């Protein structure tokens, strides 16, 4: 599939989203669809660093919540509109990403992961103690009537369709460029990559920054979606686990893997929440992840590739 083909598919997906928004189906569909699409953004963003470069980030909640709380701050301070929130949420999280990029100078493998996890805890503590954005008791957003759309549910759903398409297109472009090939080399062997002329530090900084940007973008509309944000929901462990599990299940080496993983697992979680219990979410993720790590370590895309080669 050439770049133009991908663009056409992207636009078609957005069109489909708008069409679905026009249909007067059960509002819960938009509500659940938003979450699944949000996970497409999160899984794809996580995969730029975790899958392409091989640095496993356990701190997804930190980036997501930073996007959400940047929005809250901008709403409180300037009554900033939604597009501004998304760009700023992304940029602030990108700065944090740049910061953890420098961590990779000293920390590799599991130690990097532990540091990112710790980062999430530290940031949550800071937010809990920051009264301006609601502190521990949380922040309530009173939404004005939805502009352009008949409800906030449809607006946010359509917005997430666009964000998901943009994120996936960016990830795909990177994967197929010289940057993607350099990241793959440093994932395989960082020392050898550097000795073969790959500027490993610069590429790692690029990956952490970009990954952070889109994780922040995913979190920026969150206050509008839930209307009540508290630290424990914005820094939910679910984000850390899902961000890692979805690409692992779909396959980490291509852009398609996180998309498949996020759609499958995200949908399964939404269905389970309604039909069985909302507490079952993490159990599903856990069981599926263990099964995949044991039986298909290269995820669904890897499995398909292996079957085709036979």
């Amino acid at each position, binding site marked *: 599939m050439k770049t133009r083909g991908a663009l056409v598919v992207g636009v078609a997906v957005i069109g489909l989203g708008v069409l679905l928004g026009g249909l007067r189906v059960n509002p819960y569909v938009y509500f659940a669809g938003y979450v699944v699409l949000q996970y497409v953004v999160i899984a794809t963003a996580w995969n730029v660093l975790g899958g392409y470069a091989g640095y496993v980030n356990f701190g997804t909640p930190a980036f997501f919540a930073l996007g959400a709380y940047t929005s809250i701050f901008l709403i409180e301070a300037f009554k900033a509109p939604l597009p501004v929130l998304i760009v700023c949420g992304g940029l602030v999280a990108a700065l944090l990403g740049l910061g953890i990029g420098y961590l990779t100078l000293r920390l590799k493998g599991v130690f990097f992961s532990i540091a990112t996890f710790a980062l999430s805890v530290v940031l949550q503590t800071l937010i809990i103690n920051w009264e301006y954005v609601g502190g521990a008791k949380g922040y309530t957003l009173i939404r004005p009537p939805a502009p352009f759309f008949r409800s906030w549910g449809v607006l946010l759903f359509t917005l997430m369709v666009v964000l998901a398409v943009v994120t996936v297109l960016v990830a795909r472009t990177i994967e197929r460029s010289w940057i993607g090939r*350099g990241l793959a*080399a440093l994932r395989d*062997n960082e020392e050898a*990559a*550097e*000795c073969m*002329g790959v*500027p490993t530090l610069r590429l790692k900084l690029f990956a952490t920054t970009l990954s952070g940007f889109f994780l922040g973008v995913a979190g920026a509309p969150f206050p509008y979606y839930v209307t009540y944000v508290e630290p424990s929901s914005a820094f939910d462990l679910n984000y850390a686990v899902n961000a890692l599990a979805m690409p692992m299940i779909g396959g980490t080496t291509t852009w398609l893997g996180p998309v498949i993983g996020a759609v499958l697992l995200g949908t399964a979680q939404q269905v389970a929440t309604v039909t069985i219990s909302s507490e079952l979410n993490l159990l599903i993720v856990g069981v599926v992840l263990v099964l995949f790590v044991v039986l298909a370590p290269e995820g669904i895309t890897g499995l398909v590739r292996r079957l085709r080669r036979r």
Partner: protein
Amino acid sequence: MADALLEIDGVTKRFGGFLALDRVSLQVRAGERLGLIGPNGSGKTTLINCVSGALPTDGGRILFEGRDITRLPAHQRTRLGIVRSFQIPKPFVSMTVLENLGIPLEYAAPPRSHGAAAGALDILKMIGLDAKAHLRPAGLTQIEMRKLELARAMAARPKLLVSDEAMAGLSSAEVDDILAILFRLNEQGITIIMIEHIMRAVMRFSERVVVLDAGNRIAEGTPAEIVRNPAVEKAYLGE
């Protein structure tokens, strides 16, 4: 030395309290075949790591083509033309043999007229690995892995190739195979530093041999002079 390609000038390297290199100086002429030998732990690989940029030095200077590269990151030294192969092969495991060569061709080699893939195939043919071009490294034998290591280094279009124990663990016929490749590369004008424990190979290959022991340069000369040098004998065998 006026025509020195690489000039190592009083390089010192410490690991904590351990002095791994003690003001080592060394010049390599363009087109030369230099052997670097010494007992285990004498500092050969450390010296190479300092030259390639994998380790920062604690003193001294390194010049390449007259330019001070002491503080340059490793990938930039590769682009200048200093390329190394690793003692334990470090292939890019998720890529095919051909794709392995694509990385240095894309990142290190100066841009050329014909396509990268053609360049990579030429190198694989020269090294005798073209039949395995579309295999992943996991499917290679030990000698093929060493050849891939050399082929990948070649793809970076080096002026100076540092071969770090490319032959350890290979059979006698395989050693000859690798030696023939290195001779051919040298004929193409590539300067080669060979680090090796297999004396038969180093002595046959090198025009000049430098001996390190405990971080010091203890001897230098033609292979014939080195085998007769009492200091070298002492370093290897003790009193």
